[in-house]
């Protein structure tokens, strides 16, 4: 594991120790971030599942009503009835920050607050089934909006979790072991050098003594 390209000096050792400390702290922080993101994500997923089922059911019912309406009314009449909407929706979007992920929040405002305003036609020439279909659609629309918000949040969170998980793993299984290996390599090399110096000194001492006193151990 130890990278042979590193120079075994004290300066590099200190640098590596600093980096290891930072890496450890980063790893801990990212791990916490991942866990919290995961918790939020599971909440969002649960909500999404709920809404998805609700919206799908609601839409199916609405379409069924519309089908009935189109069976009763002529296609031209139906088209004419729905041709020009009386209602209009303004969507306001803001962002909410979940663990540094910006997720959208939607707030919608209808131009007319009167709930009967969704029917853009006179009641004389249209069938009641059409009213029924539109009412169902209007109800399901609110859920659809929330579904959009939740689903986008889910996608963005999923992306962020994936990224964070990769980082955590990279730190845990690559960066930190590599740094530890390098530190070990350097400290062993330094120790070896130290031993070598000690032995050399002993040897020199012996030689000097022998030179001065013709002293032999």
């Amino acid at each position, binding site marked *: 594991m130890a990278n042979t390209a590193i120079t075994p000096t004290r300066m590099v050792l200190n640098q590596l120790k600093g980096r290891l400390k930072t890496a450890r702290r980063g790893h801990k922080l990212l791990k916490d971030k991942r866990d919290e993101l*995961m918790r939020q*994500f599971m909440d969002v*997923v649960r909500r*999404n*599942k709920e809404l*998805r089922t609700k*919206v*799908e059911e609601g*839409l*199916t019912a*609405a*379409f069924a009503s*519309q*089908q009935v309406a189109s069976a009763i009314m002529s296609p031209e009449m*139906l*088209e004419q009835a*729905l041709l020009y*909407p*009386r*209602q*209009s*929706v303004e*969507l306001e*979007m803001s*962002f909410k920050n979940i663990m540094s992920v*910006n*997720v*959208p929040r*939607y707030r919608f405002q*209808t*131009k007319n607050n009167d709930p009967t305003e*969704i*029917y*853009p036609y006179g009641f004389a020439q249209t069938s009641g089934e059409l009213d029924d*279909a*539109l009412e169902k*659609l*209007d109800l399901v*629309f609110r859920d*659809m*909006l929330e*579904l*959009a*918000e939740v*689903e*986008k949040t*889910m*996608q*963005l*969170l*999923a*992306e962020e*979790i*994936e990224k964070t*998980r990769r980082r955590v793993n990279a730190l845990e299984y690559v960066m930190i072991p590599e740094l530890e290996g390098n530190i070990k390599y350097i400290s062993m090399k330094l120790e070896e050098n130290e031993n070598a110096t000690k032995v050399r000194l002993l040897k020199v001492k012996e030689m000097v003594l022998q030179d001065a006193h013709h002293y032999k151990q």
Partner: protein
Amino acid sequence: MGFKALGLETYPAACAQEASHILRTLTREHDDYAIIYIEENLAAEMSHEIDRFKDSPTPAIILIPGREGSLGLGQNALRSAVERAVGTNILGD
């Protein structure tokens, strides 16, 4: 068609090609659409177009069941997001 009465803007598309063309114009030329709903049966053939927007905050592209009822694509999106985040499907379905 009913959505128009609710005040939404609708863009009819007969096939997936047309739909992806509309999607491209909507997202490129005016970026003031926050949510785009697409029917599942159209979305099935243009999934790569839709996936491009998965990681950007806007627009949110949401699949809704069409006239034929749910195809399960919306549920699929949920499952794939979970798989992406967790690494495995933990929802148990």
